[in-house]
């Protein structure tokens, strides 16, 4: 216990008496964490935007007017059995008519023609949402069987096929780019942090050898550096979190203009705070501790 208290005391002493080096180490950690968070934020915003675009895509199955509710329910049940299907909304004949009328309320000639027909000419409609845009093809292929020919009037997907594929291509590319960008960034962050810690330890190499010569055990020497790593991590995470929240406070009003669903980065960070900063703290702590231990290995052989 007494050794542990001394290790903590030495860690604070080292930080205080090497204020310049400590300051630079924290600055570099903060800069790296900020970069990681910028990338994280860009990724979140991109995913949100892609999700929003995907949400706009759906496929409608227009049934013939004579299709019965039971037949529609049967098709719905079949579609629901596909794991790719996320949601199916049923619009009754009346709802389709209402929707048509409201869409064309400024076109009296269309409404007049509808009146001429007398009866509701529309059949029920199923609006299908799948997990991924490419799933639509599969769903509709499954519907493309002769037994449904007498039931289904039209499928709206065919007309949108090209658009959906384009969106799918773009979103795939963005996701792939995001992945590689994150990977490259993480490698750079790793190398910078690793080298910063190595330089810090290198400047202490003579002190480490002296400590060994006066009978300090390896853990008594390593201890303060590990505690320092912990303190640097906590400090850099706290500073980064403060700066990130400041930036989000400024950024959120702009995002509200872009995202009609009220998406807010502050809310996102609030609800994922432990995941985001906990994960980063863990990564930095592991990285700095591991770098310290590796860098000290050579000096501790004396």
């Amino acid at each position, binding site marked *: 216990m*007494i*050794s542990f208290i*001394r290790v903590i005391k030495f860690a604070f*002493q*080292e930080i205080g*008496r*090497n204020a310049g080096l400590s300051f630079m180490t924290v600055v570099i950690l903060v800069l790296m964490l900020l970069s990681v968070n910028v990338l994280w934020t860009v990724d979140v915003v991109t995913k949100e935007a892609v999700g929003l675009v995907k949400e706009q895509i759906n496929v409608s199955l227009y049934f013939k007017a004579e299709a019965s509710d039971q037949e529609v329910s049967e098709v719905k049940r079949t579609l629901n059995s596909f794991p790719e299907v996320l949601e199916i909304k049923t619009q009754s004949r009346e709802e389709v008519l209402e929707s048509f009328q409201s869409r064309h309320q400024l076109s009296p000639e269309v409404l007049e023609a509808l009146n001429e027909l007398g009866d509701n000419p529309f059949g029920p409609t199923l609006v299908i949402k799948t997990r991924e845009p490419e799933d639509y093809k599969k769903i509709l292929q499954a519907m493309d069987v002769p037994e449904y020919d007498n039931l289904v009037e039209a499928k709206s997907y065919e007309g949108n096929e090209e658009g959906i594929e384009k969106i799918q291509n773009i979103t795939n590319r963005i996701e792939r780019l995001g992945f590689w960008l994150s990977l490259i960034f993480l490698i750079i962050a790793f190398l910078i942090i690793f080298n910063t810690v190595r330089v810090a330890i290198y400047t202490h190499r*003579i*002190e480490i*050898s*002296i*400590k*060994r*010569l*006066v*009978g*300090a*055990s*390896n853990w*008594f020497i390593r201890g303060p550096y590990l505690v320092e790593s912990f303190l640097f991590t906590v400090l850099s995470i706290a500073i980064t979190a403060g700066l990130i929240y400041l930036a989000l406070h400024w950024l959120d009003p702009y995002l509200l203009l872009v995202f009609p669903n009220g998406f807010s980065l502050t809310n996102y960070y609030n609800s994922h705070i432990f995941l985001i900063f906990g994960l980063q703290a863990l990564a930095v702590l592991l990285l700095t501790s591991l770098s310290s231990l590796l860098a000290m290995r050579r000096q501790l052989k*004396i």
Partner: protein
Amino acid sequence: MIKLHGVTKVYNPESIGVRNLNLHIEAGEFVSIVGQSGTGKTTLVRLLIAEEHPTKGKITIGDWDITNIDSSNIPFLRRQIGVIFQDFKLLPKKTVYENISFALEVAGENSSRIRKVVPQVLEIVGLKDKMHRYPQQLSGGEQQRVAIARSLVHRPKIIIGDEPTGNLDSLNTVEIIEILKKINEFGTTVLLATHNREIVNSLRRRVITLRGGEIVSDEREGKYRL
């Protein structure tokens, strides 16, 4: 106290540190190890504090065979031996007081004893009034006295000096040797590796002469002869 049996240290075929050393140093002796640069004095010191392991032979300190001492036991060995180096080896970011207390702290000594003992050893080396200074605020002689105080603080049975006066002027050299003599009078074994002729001749104690890594003479009351 210190026994070496056929100790050889080979760094590589072209560089042999010491060769077939047989040596027995009794408790309480003051022994000078002399020889020109590169004759193996420092290798011998490094072997005794387990900075190096012998290629051949056996080293015992007291009843402890340190020939192939496990790295986890090295700190315990070093807490039993006080070592003074030519370049002082003080921690630059610690004060005089902290440099000395550090040697006790690593050994798990309690704080109240540290607070009591450190000023006492600083008193012995005449630096009590400078205990809150940093090493760079002291002269070379003062820094070496701090190093001696640090080596003394855990009351070691053996003190080894590796050219401890090599960086000092003659006045400071005399002071340091006087302190070492005083320490020896209290029963501590002192091993002094040096190539300072005046010191060795003035001591009139046992002198071991090394040449080419071998002991070429071992005299009870010797003089500096190469």
